[in-house]
């Protein structure tokens, strides 16, 4: 039986996947072909969406079409499905081999968390079960005591993938040891970092692995109730979770005496209202309890006093998704990957000025250069690599000079950045590092809950200083003022948001100090990015007098007759850059 799979995660939908899906359905109906059409999740190659995979035809193996649009559907159906002739022009993979397209995107990847993403239909429990689904929990229930489960997880070396990097085994152990009969599991699916979408893809592509991970954790600590705190901005993920939970309840996988054991387990979904700080565990708990999402003092830690005052274990989506694999494959299979203190794999969301943006799961210990060049295919538009920004708004920038750094929790922390949840933004020579720091600080400043003085007002003041620097009003001493305030904010804030918010500023000021100095002293932006610091002029040698720039200029600041060298009146120029973009001869100079 032929099978057509179409990636309908958010990335696929955003690329027009639904229209392609409808078109295929229409074609199948019109041509009355006997073929199974399936949805699947994201396989990580977001840069190639819409992806359509055809398999089970007379030709062995599967064939992957990339960047499929509705108008390509007719030909694929007719030639590939009906005539068994794959459309060579659009294929990126055929017969299990990469074909005609030198994409080694998957070469250095190792897929554990994403093992089912893009492979199975996330709406089908059966497909999950067919891929060893719910075997891990049954194995735990039948073969291991909770303590043994904790031992396996501890031994695997799994650390919290939400960014904290705390030992998952130890966290479970503390929750197990906490006094009390009522305990909770919380899955933190409040993925809020700009540019990060690991958890979304996992929930969209393989919700059951997360739910199964939660079951194992619940068994291990002795919880009988769980919450998934998911962003309301992830409607597809929330829908899939809800439907999956309903199906599990129907099958008796959730509820009383699951899998015939003595264990009871219920899972609820709580949709977050969009506050970034609710990703912080104590704020998240407050939010589930119906309170304002504001971090509270620790200790007591959630493991002692969490949701409704009961011992609570919180892990992130990716952490839970690792768990069933570890149980089934053993701790050693997991801890054989990675570095001394960071084991297993990590999913990164590649974004920015990189050729292949998307999701990549790589073993710990891979270098930054390998990710950027080998997995990500290098920098777009032949620009020079400048730095990577890791760890979202709480993270920092690592310059290209440190490209051989092995990715590992502790190595990255040493640079001033953090592993974070896995956002990895690649920056090229056109990125202004001051502006970048301003961007991230603006984010955290807006997302501060407003409780702590330093975070609430301090980040605002830092942002104001950055703003004045980028418009050429920076003063001598501003860098020192920024650094002083940054350290105080880090030292005197209650939660991770405040404690890390200054990181983008601190790392850029550390590795790219001269860029700050140029803005302040020379009133120049070396990356030619900050509009207020730019001057546009015309290179007389290159100008052909085509008048295009003058016609584009919205304020008539460019003068010059046809076929004569043009000139820009800098007094009139509003630095919009339209002329620079318009010139086909590189005659407009930005400085």
């Amino acid at each position, binding site marked *: 039986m032929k099978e057509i799979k179409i990636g309908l995660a958010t990335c696929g939908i955003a690329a027009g996947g639904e229209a392609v899906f409808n078109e295929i359905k229409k074609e199948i109906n019109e041509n009355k072909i006997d073929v199974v059409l399936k949805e699947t999740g994201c396989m990580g190659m977001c840069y190639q969406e819409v992806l359509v995979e055809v398999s089970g035809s007379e030709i062995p193996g599967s064939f992957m079409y990339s960047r499929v649009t509705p108008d390509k559907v007719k030909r694929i159906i007719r030639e590939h499905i009906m005539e068994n002739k794959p459309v060579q022009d659009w294929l990126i993979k055929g017969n299990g081999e990469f074909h005609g397209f030198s994409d080694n995107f998957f070469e250095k990847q190792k897929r554990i968390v994403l093992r089912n993403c893009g492979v199975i239909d996330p709406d089908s429990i059966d497909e999950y079960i067919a891929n060893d689904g719910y075997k891990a929990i049954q194995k735990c229930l039948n073969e291991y005591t909770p303590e043994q489960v904790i031992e396996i997880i501890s031994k695997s070396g799994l650390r919290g993938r939400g960014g904290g990097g705390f030992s998952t085994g130890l966290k479970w152990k503390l929750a197990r040891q906490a006094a009390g009969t009522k305990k909770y599991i919380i899955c933190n699916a409040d993925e809020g970092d700009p540019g990060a979408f690991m958890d979304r893809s996992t929930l969209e592509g393989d919700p059951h692995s997360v739910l199964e991970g939660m079951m194992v954790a619940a068994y291990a600590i002795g919880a009988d109730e769980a919450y998934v705190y998911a962003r309301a901005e992830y409607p597809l993920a929330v829908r899939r979770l809800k439907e999956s939970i309903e199906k599990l309840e129907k099958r008796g996988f959730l509820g009383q005496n699951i899998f015939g054991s003595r264990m009871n387990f219920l899972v609820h979904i709580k949709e977050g209202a969009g*506050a970034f*700080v609710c990703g912080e565990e104590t704020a998240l708990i407050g939010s589930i309890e119906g309170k*304002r999402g*504001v971090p509270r*003092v620790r*200790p007591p830690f959630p493991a002692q006093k969490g949701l409704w005052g009961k011992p609570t274990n919180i892990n992130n989506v990716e952490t839970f998704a690792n768990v069933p694999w570890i149980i089934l494959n053993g701790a050693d299979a997991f801890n054989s990957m990675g570095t001394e203190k960071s084991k297993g794999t990590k999913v990164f969301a590649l974004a920015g000025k990189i050729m292949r943006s998307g999701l990549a799961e790589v073993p710990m210990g891979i270098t930054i250069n390998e990710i950027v060049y080998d997995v990500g295919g290098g920098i777009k538009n032949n620009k020079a690599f400048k730095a990577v920004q890791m760890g979202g708004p709480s993270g920092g920038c690592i310059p290209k000079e440190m490209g051989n750094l092995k990715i590992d929790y502790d190595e990255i922390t040493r640079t001033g950045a953090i592993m974070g949840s896995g956002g990895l933004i690649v920056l090229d020579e056109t990125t202004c590092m001051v502006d970048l720091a301003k961007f991230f600080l603006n984010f955290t*400043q*807006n*997302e*501060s*809950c*407003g*409780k*702590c*003085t*330093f975070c*609430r*007002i*301090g*980040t*605002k*003041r830092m942002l*104001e200083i950055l703003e004045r620097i980028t418009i050429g009003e920076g003063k001598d001493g501003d860098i020192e*003022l920024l650094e*002083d*305030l940054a350290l*105080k904010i*880090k*030292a*005197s*804030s*209650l939660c991770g948001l405040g*404690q890390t918010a200054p990181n983008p500023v601190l790392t850029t000021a550390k590795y790219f100090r001269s860029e700050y100095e140029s803005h302040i002293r020379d009133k120049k932006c070396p990356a030619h990015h900050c509009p207020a610091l730019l001057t546009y002029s015309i290179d007389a040698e290159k100008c052909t007098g085509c008048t295009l720039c003058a016609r584009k200029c919205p304020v008539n600041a460019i003068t010059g007759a046809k076929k004569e060298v043009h000139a820009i009146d800098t007094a009139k120029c509003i630095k919009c850059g339209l002329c620079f973009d318009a010139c086909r001869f590189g005659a407009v100079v930005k400085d």
Partner: protein
Amino acid sequence: MKQITITINGKEITAAEGKTILEVVHENKLDKIPTLCYDGRIEPYGSCFLCVVEIQGMNRLVASCCTPIAQGMVIFTDNEKIRNSRKTALELLLSNHYADCIGPCINNCPANVDAQGYIALISMGKYDEALQLIKKQNPLPLSIGRVCVRDCEVACRRQIIDESVAINHLKRYVADIDAGHHWTPELKKPTGKKIAVVGGGPSGLTCAYYSTLEGHKVTIFEKLPRLGGMLMYGIPEYRLPKAVLDDEINWITGLGVDVKTNAAVGKDFDIQSLFKDGFDAVYLAVGAHKASTMRIEHEEDTVGVMGGIDFLRQLPEKHPKLEGTVIVVGGGNTAIDAARTALRCGADKVRIVYRRSINEMPAHPEEVHAAQAENIEILFLTNPKGIVRDENKKLKGIVCLKMELVAAGPGERPKPVPKEGSDFELPCDFLIGAIGQQVDTDFNKVISASTSVDLEKWGTVKINNDTMETSIQGVFAGGDAVTGPDTAINSIGQGKRAARAIDFYLKYGKVEKSLKPFYSFKHKFSEVTQVELSHFPKTERNRLKELPVAQRVSTFDEVEFGYSGEQAQAEPKRCLECGCSEYYDCDLRRHADDFNIDISTYMGETRKYKVDTRHPFIVMDPNKCINCGRCVRTCSEILKVSALGFVYRGFKSVVKPAMEKPLLETNCIACGNCVDNCPTGALTEKFPFKVLGTLPKQNIETVCNFCSIGCKVNFKVIDDNIFFVSNSTEELKNSLNRGYLCVKGRFGHRYLMDSPRLKQPLMKDSTGGFKEVGWDKAIDHTAERVKSIIAKYGPQSVAVFGSPRMSNEELYLLQKFTRAGLKTNNTGSFYNVLYGKQQDSLDSFIGYTASTVSMDSLRTADVVVVVNGNLSEENLVMELNIKEAQKKNGTKLILLNSSEIILTKTADLWIDSRKGSNTVLLNSIIRHVIEKGLFDKDQASTPGFEELKQMAAEYTPEEAIEAADISTEKYNRMLEWIENPDRKIVFIYNIDSVRDKSPNDLKAIGNFLQLTGRLGKNDSGSGIIILSEYANSAGLMDMGVTPRYLPGYVKEFEKDEIKRIGNAWGVDLTPIFQPADLADRLLKGEIKALLIFGEDPLNVTEHVRYFKGIEFLMVQDLVQTDTAAEADVVFPAASFIEQAGTYTACDGRIQETERIVSLKVDRENWKLIAGLAAKFGLPMDYASIEQVNQEIRNVNRSWNGSAAGKNLNETGKPQFSVYSTDMSVYQPEMPVIHYPDSYFKLLQEDLKYRSAGSE
């Protein structure tokens, strides 16, 4: 609790695990860690980060308020890093604190006169107080009120709306009122130190005044014949009449200042000679009296040319005669003064020549306008170039040049430059050069071999600006001599500063720089715009009446008249009250001072909000909010009301009610506990006054006069008639009510300020109208009427009533007067007449019907049972204490109440019994306890036990459940919680509440407690707290203001006690003390003369039935009540804050109160009773209320044991307690108070169970 050891600042400390660092540091008094968000009564929060400390081995600083100690922790609470972080935290907070600490008016005044403060006082009609406030900074308000340049008005924000507040006119208004008597503060004891003030101008006079107040002996040396300096010799009479100035000068010198006029320093003596003459310090304030030259040729030697200041200097002695045309050169106030004076001296035409334009003119615009109104012509952009004179050197005119203005540097006035060839001639007869003055440095001449003070190169005296010291030790200088010609108010400011510096110097031998306090100002953030002030309507400034122009140009009469009374009341309403009412209580400002804050580093965007004044009692100014959340947390954690919360996130987040609704539309109960918890001025009480200044307040603690809980309240007193309740002091947090109050306690006491009080006794005349009479006459008349009624109907026809809000002393005297004076037992209160039914319910068990345990028993109780009443409305603080017990100790709260009230939300078990069925429920519990044998076995042999058993047997659980209409489950749970004889159970019962009562509830509770051995046992921790509506309901009974008992609950059968008390009073009480039903006597019309103290029964019309037989009615009250309106004689009463006394709270705590404000009536309340008693042959010659208190200690047996001495409560106030049988638990160090043994014996004989069935 496990003890652990930590090290703080190098010192090893042992403390209980679970405590926070801040608690340990403060408990051990190791350091004062600053904090804004911490309040020990609510959960630690950790938001302000002012309390950060360093823990060894930790990179971050931690908030000490929410970090628990851990074994071996090494903590530092003060070092460079910590101070730095705290300072930054404050700077950040203040960079987003769009608010004014003080009014810009005050800040801009060189003498820092509290303009907003005196405007506020004037608005309240407190003219004396306003003047007293002014005189704290400025001793010359009469003169300055006329001539000040008004820097205050220049800064006044009102200008943004229309015109500045006429601050100076208001000052003149109160100064004019004061002119007759010249209020003077008390002078300090003479110090024996002598100060020489050289120069008798405003600066010298000011220094002399404040130095004299400090007890120093001052001598003023003045070169000219009269004191006053430029006020005398520079300001013309039509602006400042010499008589007014002299009056003010004479007042100052009259305080004991020696004056030597015509004594010129540098000529008659020198500085050093003063020290030889025995002066300890010198203040040099010689002024700047030398006219600057115009620098034109022949200026010096032409007849008709003179200096402006020289011209004006003649005025005090004579009015020079001028004629023809006078030209005055200059643009300052002296030029205007010279010009207007020239006109009054007979000049035909006066012109002013000024080289710049009107915009640059330094003279006060009002003066310029006045001159123009008087037809004085001003030639702008004109400058004299030369003099035209005849051969006799007599002036004929001047040659002038036209000028042009060219822009100068930033902040500078434009520069005038001559226009080439614009010369023109102006004929004139006199030329007055008023372009400025200089210091005449002749003063510095040295007569004998001694040194002179250092001068600046331009001739002024050089001083250290921080200390006012010159180059010679002990010599200080100020005024124009230091600043060059400046304003009078500036000289006054310097004089005051110099006086302070000299005082310091004389006391300590040196002067220290005083730190400038931190002030936040809105205009430092951004320009204050009209939009922000748009809610203020425009109102025109009240103008002074002036002498008509025609009249004034020919005389030197004062041109401006002062304000009328109406104007003085209208003008203060224009004040925008910029300065913060919490100025003196703001923690944020206090810390800012401590850390020497500079907010300029972090200036940026600020939040701006409209002030919300919609709530009747609470003003919210979110601009001042620092997000500490203390209000939010108090409202949710303590009150469980949650009317306030945070809105928005991040920088924009701020405390407001949800959805930004007005507070009034939330479920706010107006308890105001948020206001007390606000460390800044973001939440303040809405004052009933017109304007509130930044006035200092005094904290005085007393006891609330509303309900019977006896909460500590703190009065913040600004003035005898301006005060409010604010429980924000630290001490109160340790009181029984932990500082918390209900709406009545906090805002209710306002009636003491607002109400129109009775001031004089009133007597009804023949027409039925009232007329004011003297006290003696009213007392005589009352005594006569009562005597004639006794003569006619006998002593039983008189009754004396007192209020349960009166003090124990008043009540004691009241019943003593009745029994020993009037010889009748008719003493009581409408409180017992109306509520009396249950008031003996527990007598048969314990001898009285009052609480058997203290409020503290809540702290140990396992179960609290609230039977009837609505605590939230009636006794809120009791509710808060129960919530605290639930939270801290897991105490279970059972609520027996038919209706849903606020407490049902937090009750652990709400028995929603049908109204009136509680007795049935309780009786069925008694049956259960007897059946299961869960009672005190000793009780089985007590008389009445069998009857009780029989009675209770009728109340089966099924019947009880049906009667109460509750679920079996609830019933069973209630049984389960209270059946265990080992549990500490406290019942709470409001005897005055009208809700849900069934008549025998109290007896049933008594039965249950007695049966289970929970009554009368010292350590049981179980019992009942009986609440009531009035502050001294318990004292009323204890003092014997009831026909039922003599003081100390002495009953009819206690013959020995009756005899003992009678002996103490000198009467035989046996025939007098005959208990009777007062209500019955009133209703039957047997009472003919009724004396009512502090009660208003006729405010309920139907109570008129009690007044049937009344032929004579006397009432004493604060205000003209409904009852007083019917009286024959009305006496004014003093309020409880005007006199000392003791009050007995619901649980027997006796708390002393002191006088808080001065007496508003002629005598304290007890003196009326004493006055009446004297007429009936009962002398009450107590020297004070304290003596009455002593007598109570001797007479009232329940006060025995307290006679030995006073005991102190948690906040250090005298307190002791009656009733409680469990004193050792309550206050271990206090002696346990028992009734005398004989009393217990009698009780036991009388003890029997009362059959308590459902009636």
